[in-house]
């Protein structure tokens, strides 16, 4: 059965060698009960370890069941130990955090049995040793004798041919020891049983064969026998290992046993993940609110419908014409589309050196949906309600003051609130590009020299010219003739190519209006007037007589908002308006889009910075996990050794540790979701007030009910991420655990 041939074993520690076994040749038969006895240090445990493959002889051969085991590879040994050898230890070596039944079943699981099957087998074994009632208890709840019974059940569950027992009664009192010995001999009937002990009485009582070892030499053998053995050199290829599910199951037991520690580690890992979740939740809301802000404008697209100034057509006509033809518009407002400038603050008496041009302006929308959007953009004050009121965008309000000073919004509003302003609403025009003032003559090309075809005459060279220019106006129907009395060339070009500009210093009509509000121009850059006021402006409109020269200042427009229900007909609406002779432009608020894009980019950058800083916490947590696992492996060296002694392969050890890290990762992920949800609820209740004020300064549409919104997808990522981090962190310790030598591991303490 087992043949040892000239086995030597030398241990070296530093430079000192220790000859533990000297030339041991033994032969054990199938049904022997061998007791190897001797003092401590005589080499008996070494012998046992060699037979079990936990240790390798320095020289000599060993044949077990016709296999030359000295040539075994590690995995062959693992398989062999698992199936052919049952080990019983002095210190029982039960895994403390596993219930009794799992302690027994683990050996079967290592040999590839499924969970249920292994447990059934374990329960049967426990019945045989009389412990079926204690199956679900933890080892520490058992007495010494009971523990050793568990050890016996475990050794025998895979029905091995060889039972090796190392001082099985060493830690028990005499009565219990005898019971245990009875049980072992009973259970190991017709198996080879090798017991190592220093207890002579025990040896004599139970042995069928006694072997005495002294200083590594066999000094006595009651039944020496030396048979020839056949050796089969064919290698068996075995594939079986602990399933990952089993790894998880074992991990769960271990986690349960070290609740606090595992909990803390998982908590540590989850802190960073919670941080990432919260940051993402906060920025979700911010981005959502930005999106909502844009959506309000996007939902009702704004069209600018232009037509050239037409002195014959009333503004009302234009409005009603568009309205009648297109019932899709929510709101229409007429804008003369020529520049208005603020020239004086009547209340404070300031005459502006540089009149402030208003740029774009529109009428206050009437439709409640549109009105609400504009309402939300009013920073101070309100929208105009009567035709003598108006609202300025922030930038224009600031332009009323020195550009060098930075007035706060409140200060600005205090200084402008309900002030009366003079607005220049109609202007004198002046011809553009008067040639160089040093040149008295304006040349007119293609002039036929006929005084009648020239514009109006002027008598003097320079002064007269100016005087006459004043009578020039782009709005007269008749061409004005300009020539000098000496019939010299007067224009550089012909009359029609004269460009006109609005002479802002020369106001034709001035209206007094009251400022009632300031609009936050982050979104809208328009001044707002009451629609009626804009309609009265229409009366003053005039057009150039020569209409080749229509530019932005010579047209009028209607701002129309397409209702959200007709949004899909937008193209058709535009086309039909164009067919009616209008020029249609879809208003895309470039400044808004650009700013929104920039803000969006900014939020991503900020989120990235914060996430990176929190990422450091996650990395630290990963390292912590690595550290804790590394320590825990030192603590569990014995357990690792035991599993290896039962035939667990390196891969099995890895599986167990990876299972554990997976569970920690999963736990951390779930924990972080839980904590994050609680913090979100708490944050939305407790911190909402303060943070909301802060955030709404920059993002208008922050929902009032909550500044955090967690996305289910992000939570899923969190769990997966934390599992990946945990497994990655646990990889090095798991590998290092699997490399532990079983004999060293068992020797530990």
């Amino acid at each position, binding site marked *: 059965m087992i043949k040892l041939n000239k086995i030597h074993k030398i241990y070296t520690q530093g430079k000192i060698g220790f000859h533990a076994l000297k030339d041991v040749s033994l032969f054990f038969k199938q049904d022997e009960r061998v007791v190897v006895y001797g003092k401590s240090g005589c080499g008996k445990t070494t012998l046992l370890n060699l037979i079990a493959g936990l240790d390798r002889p320095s020289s000599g051969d060993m044949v077990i069941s016709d296999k030359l085991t000295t040539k075994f590879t590690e995995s062959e040994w693992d398989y062999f130990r698992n199936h052919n050898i049952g080990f019983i230890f002095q210190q029982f070596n039960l895994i403390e955090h596993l219930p009794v039944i799992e302690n027994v079943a683990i050996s079967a699981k290592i040999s590839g049995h499924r969970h249920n099957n292994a447990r059934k087998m374990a329960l049967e074994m426990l019945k045989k040793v009389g412990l079926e009632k204690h199956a679900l208890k933890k080892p520490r709840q058992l007495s010494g004798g009971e523990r050793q019974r568990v050890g016996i059940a475990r050794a025998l569950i895979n029905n091995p041919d060889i039972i090796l027992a190392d001082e099985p009664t060493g830690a028990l009192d005499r009565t219990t020891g005898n019971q245990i010995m009875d049980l072992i001999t009973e259970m190991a009937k017709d198996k080879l049983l090798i017991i190592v002990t220093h207890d002579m009485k025990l040896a004599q009582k139970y042995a069928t064969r006694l072997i005495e070892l002294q200083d590594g030499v066999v000094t006595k053998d009651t039944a020496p026998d030396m048979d020839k053995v056949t050796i089969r050199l064919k290698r068996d290829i075995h594939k079986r290992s602990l399933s990952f599910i089993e790894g998880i199951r074992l991990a769960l037991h271990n986690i349960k046993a070290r609740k606090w520690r595992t909990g803390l580690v998982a908590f540590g890992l989850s802190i960073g993940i919670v941080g990432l979740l919260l940051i993402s939740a906060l920025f979700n809301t911010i981005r959502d609110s930005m999106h909502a802000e844009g959506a309000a404008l996007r939902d009702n697209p704004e069209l600018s419908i232009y037509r050239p100034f037409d002195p014959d057509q009333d503004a009302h006509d234009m409005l009603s014409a568009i309205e009648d033809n297109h019932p899709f518009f929510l709101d229409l407002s007429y804008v003369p589309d020529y520049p208005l400038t603020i020239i004086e603050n009547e209340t404070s008496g300031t005459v502006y050196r540089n009149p402030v041009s208003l740029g774009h302006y529109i009428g206050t929308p009437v439709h409640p949906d549109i009105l609400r959007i504009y309402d939300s953009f009013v920073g101070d004050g309100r929208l105009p309600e009567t035709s003598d009121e108006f609202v300025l965008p922030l930038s224009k309000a600031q332009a*009323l003051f020195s550009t060098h000073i930075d007035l706060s919004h409140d200060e600005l509003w205090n200084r402008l609130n309900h002030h009366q302003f003079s607005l220049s609403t109609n202007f004198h025009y002046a011809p553009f590009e008067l040639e160089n003032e040093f040149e008295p003559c304006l040349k007119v090309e293609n002039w036929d020299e006929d005084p009648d075809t020239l514009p109006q005459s002027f008598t003097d060279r320079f002064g007269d010219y100016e005087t006459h220019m004043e009578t020039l106006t782009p709005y007269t129907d008749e061409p004005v003739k300009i020539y000098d009395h000496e019939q010299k060339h007067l224009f550089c070009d012909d009359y029609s190519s004269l460009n006109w500009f609005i002479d802002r210093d020369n106001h034709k009509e001035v209206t007094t209006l009251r400022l009632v509000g300031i609009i936050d121009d982050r979104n809208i850059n328009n001044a707002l007037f009451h629609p009626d006021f804009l309609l009265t402006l229409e009366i003053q409109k005039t057009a150039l007589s020569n209409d080749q020269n229509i530019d932005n200042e010579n047209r009028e427009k209607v701002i129309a908002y397409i209702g959200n229900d007709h949004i899909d007909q937008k193209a058709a609406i535009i086309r039909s308006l164009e067919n009616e002779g209008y020029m249609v432009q879809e208003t895309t608020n470039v400044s808004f889009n650009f700013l929104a894009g920039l803000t969006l980019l900014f939020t991503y950058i900020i989120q990235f910075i914060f996430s990176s800083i929190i990422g450091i916490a996650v*990395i630290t947590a990963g390292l912590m996990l690595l550290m804790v696992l590394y320590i825990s492996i030192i603590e569990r060296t014995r357990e690792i050794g035991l599993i290896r002694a039962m035939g667990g392969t390196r891969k099995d050890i890895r599986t167990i540790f990876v299972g554990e890290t997976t569970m920690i990762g999963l736990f951390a992920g779930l924990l972080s979701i839980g904590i994050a949800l609680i913090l979100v609820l708490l944050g939305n209740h407790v911190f909402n007030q303060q943070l909301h004020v802060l955030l709404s300064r920059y993002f208008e549409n922050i929902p009032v009910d909550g500044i955090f919104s967690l996305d289910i997808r992000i939570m899923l990522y969190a769990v997966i991420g934390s599992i990946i981090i945990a497994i990655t962190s646990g990889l090095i310790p798991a590998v290092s655990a699997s490399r532990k030598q079983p004999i060293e591991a068992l020797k530990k303490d």
Partner: protein
Amino acid sequence: MLNLHHVTKTYINGDETLHALNDVNLSFRPGDVAFLLGASGSGKSTLLNVLSGLDTPSEGTISIDGVDTERFSKKDWAIYRNHYVGFVFQEYNLIEHLSALENVALPLLFQGVDRKSSLERARIELERIGLANHIDKKPLFLSGGQQQRVAIARAFVTNPKVIMADEPTGALDSELGDKVIEYLIENAKDKVVIVVTHDEDLAQRYANRIITISDGKIITDDREQTPDTPDKDKLSLTEPRMRLSLLFKFARNNLASRMFRNLMTAAIVSVGFISILLLTFIIGGITGSISENIAKIIPPDEYQIHHVEDTAIDIGTYTAILGRPEVDDLQYNINETYPVQARGNTMMFSFLSLPFDTLAFERDGTFYGRMPENDDEVVISLRTALEIRQMQMIDEDSYGYLFDLVTETQFDLIHLGQPHTTLKIVGMHADGAFSQARVYMPYDALYDIVSDLDPDGDYRMSLVTTLNISSDNDIQAFTQDLYDTENVVMRNVFAEVTGQVESVMDNALRWFIGVALITLVVSGILIGLVIYTSVLERIREIGILTALGARSHNIRLIFILESGLNGLMSGIIAMVASIFIASFLNRLFNSFIEAPLNLITGGNLNFTLLSVSLLPIFFVLVFGVIYAMIAGALPAHYASKLNAVHALRKE
């Protein structure tokens, strides 16, 4: 001396209830050499533990010198063990990292005896036991017999009244064992000696009293004694004081024995500190560099004055402001462009008044020539000089030559319809590649020209001034006063710009560090867990210390100190690493971003991305230690609450 009265001790192990002691009545007197005999598990060790207060009886009372111990606190027991009891264990239980001498001196040090006399007494004790040659050896280098003798010396060094020995010869061969016992008995006259053994032979030879125990019951006691009357010398419990340096030594050893692990831990913990330090450095560096570079462009001590509404500041207001005692020097901010004729060409140059602080010319760039002394003398900028000579660029080395060329140039400011003003170039400000064509004139001369040419007063839009007040409050009050009375706003552009940068950066730093603190929570957990592991590994040592009379707060302190040391280590790692990383990043930034940028700016940019400052480092060091101590407090507390018996039993 020692009396046990109906003492019972029960353990529950699984379903079994084990009577380790079952109604034990015993009393010991000085001079007793009592051997407790019994098989393993008979309860003899439990009896010893109960007698020393390492274990408390389930029922019954123990009295020492007539004092009932029922009300003994853990502290009292510790003092009692320290002063009254000398322990000898089977496994010697020496502290591995202390020398033989220090091991023996330990109980004295626990008593608060000063180090010198403790060591002296320990030396005497060791010499007496024949180990004079081995006093400085660590236990590992001593044989079993020598180790046991050290343990005996340790038991005797405090001159206790009771010697308790638990299988003192168990690990020794019989010859050595005999010697040890003989020494024990010889030196323990008029003490109570209680020896627990299972060696009947030994007992027969040395005992003057043999007590046999089985299953927790006294089977035989060959000299039954009646409880004695209280002794003359009362039990006095003076509180021992343990020196911090001793505890520190334990803590340091804990750390050193697991150096790799502790270094790893410290390194991991330092990650959080490093990130905090680097954030502080980078924010400090950027803020500082921005201010520094802004100061080159905007003079920090100049104040600009503007009218609130965008109108000119009239002469009346000017005079009013100039009349203020706070105002040093007040000028209109003149920056007018006029045509200039030089070398037959007409060019346009900006005319500015000389800055208040003419040294600014030298701070920002190089200055050639001298400052104007007369009204017709001017300083020109590099660009002006180049334009006069009709050049685009010139090498930096030739600036001086260029200046020499332009000083001789006829330089006429053109007045339309009036005679030209001839100006004399006396200085040149070479202000780098971004130089603008400027001419600096004395203010009064320039003002005369400008007010003459531009009667509308476009130049009156703003004023520039220096102040003779410096405190922020005064300046603020003065600003407010001007605002109220003259309707003008006075601002310090430098302070505004840098102030804005600083406040943004400060806020950013606050948020970043707030977020980075999350990492410290993780670090705290790690420290806690590592200290907890250290406690688990030191259980035996804790047991020995407890048996020698160390009190729970001493043990707690050892582990708190250990975590403090760990924190210090992480702080030091963080310091070194962050300084290293900072200088590395600075180099990287300077050679890859600043240097190319300076090709454009002409070397004017001087940027330090991360500025290493000592205050945050110091703060991190102190905080690291304190934080680690807090993190280690919980496991340390757990260690202090460990049951000594279990601790010693742990193999």
